[in-house]
């Protein structure tokens, strides 16, 4: 997750990644696209004029009464708290079924 040591500045993509992964319904980010940083790559996050994130959600959490639109709205709000007012496109790429 986000590099906590002050040695290296935390990239905005990493802050978006941390905000998304903090949601209990998110299993992981999907690797359909990525942000390429020096020394590492952040899957499922792209920052441009629009912010895009691609996530894999946990089926178990959705099943217990959390519809996808609700989870997506929460993710969008969490990402916008990091990136500002730019539109956030959210892709639900897959479900993780345990």
């Amino acid at each position: 997750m986000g590099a906590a040591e002050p040695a290296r500045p935390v990239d905005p993509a990493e802050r978006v990644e941390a905000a998304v992964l903090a949601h209990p319904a998110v299993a992981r980010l999907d690797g359909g696209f990525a942000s390429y940083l020096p020394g590492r790559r952040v899957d499922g996050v792209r920052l441009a004029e629009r912010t895009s994130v691609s996530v894999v959600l946990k089926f178990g959490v959705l099943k217990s009464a959390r519809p996808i639109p609700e989870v997506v709205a929460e993710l969008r709000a969490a990402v916008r708290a990091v990136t500002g007012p730019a539109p956030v496109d959210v892709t639900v790429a897959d479900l993780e079924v345990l």
Partner: protein
Amino acid sequence: MAAHNTAAQPEGGPPARLADDTAQGRTTIASTVVQKVAGLAAREIAGVYALGGGVQRAFGALIERIPGAGTSTTAGVTVEVGEKQAAIDLDIVVEYGAGIVDLARAVRRNVITNVERITGLEVIEVNIAVNDIHLPEENGDGDQAQSRVE
């Protein structure tokens, strides 16, 4: 921002559709997601032995019911996902003894309820093909190995 698609359409990977488009951003639900929800909902019903089996009616899927929607299939579940709607085809194997008409009705109800609740898409149809019946002594789970004499 108008409700209009500007740039950056499909990211590659499975066919995916927008389900929502607002000034705050687009929401896309991949068809894999709808497939998994539908498949799990069908399997939940007692009397469904398995999904798939038989010849998957691949050619039937060539007829598009939702314009522009991609079709994808895995293990007996074919879905077409549009912007607001989904259509689902299921191939199921039933347990011997189950009343097929009642079973199909229960499967359809559970699939519609779950897909609509979880994905927020409207399910316009669920077509169910029962292509086999599972008999208890198939697969060697009966007492095949038991001999009649000691």
